[in-house]
């Protein structure tokens, strides 16, 4: 778990016609459970998958993931 990285995957799915987790998972080549884990902040994906998510929503990487800095 990496609390210093947050993401907008859930919001982006909503803004993209309530895209299902399964549809996103199929688009980026992971399981639906991995999409769920990413949304919940329980798993930080590889750079490749992160870029694929951004590509699936046609947005830049920093619109999907935000680095919050080191936790103090």
């Amino acid at each position, binding site marked *: 778990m990496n609390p210093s990285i947050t993401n907008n995957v859930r919001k982006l799915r909503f803004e993209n016609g309530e895209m299902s987790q399964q549809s996103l998972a199929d688009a980026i080549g992971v399981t639906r*459970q991995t999409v769920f884990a990413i949304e919940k902040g329980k798993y930080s994906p590889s750079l490749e998958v992160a870029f694929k998510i951004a590509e699936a929503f046609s947005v830049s990487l920093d619109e999907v993931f935000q680095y919050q800095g080191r936790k103090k």
Partner: protein
Amino acid sequence: MTSLKLSFEEKSTWASLAIILIVFSVYFSQVYDGLIDGILDKAAVTGLFFGTVVTVVILEIVLHIVIAAFNHRDADQPRDERDRLFAVKAGNISGWVLGIAVLIIAAHTFIQDLDSTWVANLLLFAVFVSQVTSYTLQLVYYRRGY
């Protein structure tokens, strides 16, 4: 849908953990009692071991067919990067467990001059503990995140 149903890999890990815990606990219990009481010779232990391995293989096949039948879509998907990462992380720690156990068994064997049947089963027990550690850690990672 936003609930977290278990993935095929996680169900598979649960099944494998349950199978080896149950089947090998019975095996080790029988071997330990048999060797202590002197009622099991090397041939009997060997037979028991192969019977246990065959049982594990059959149960693994049957349980995985059942799991796949209930969720064939997930079963058709290959392991993704999260599954692979969890397996590697768990394998790294369970490798240490196995290494330390083997060193302890080697020292014990050297000091006590153990019979080969005991040594073989102690090594098998080390592999068992290592594998249980690996499955357990993977399940912890799936539940808590990593």
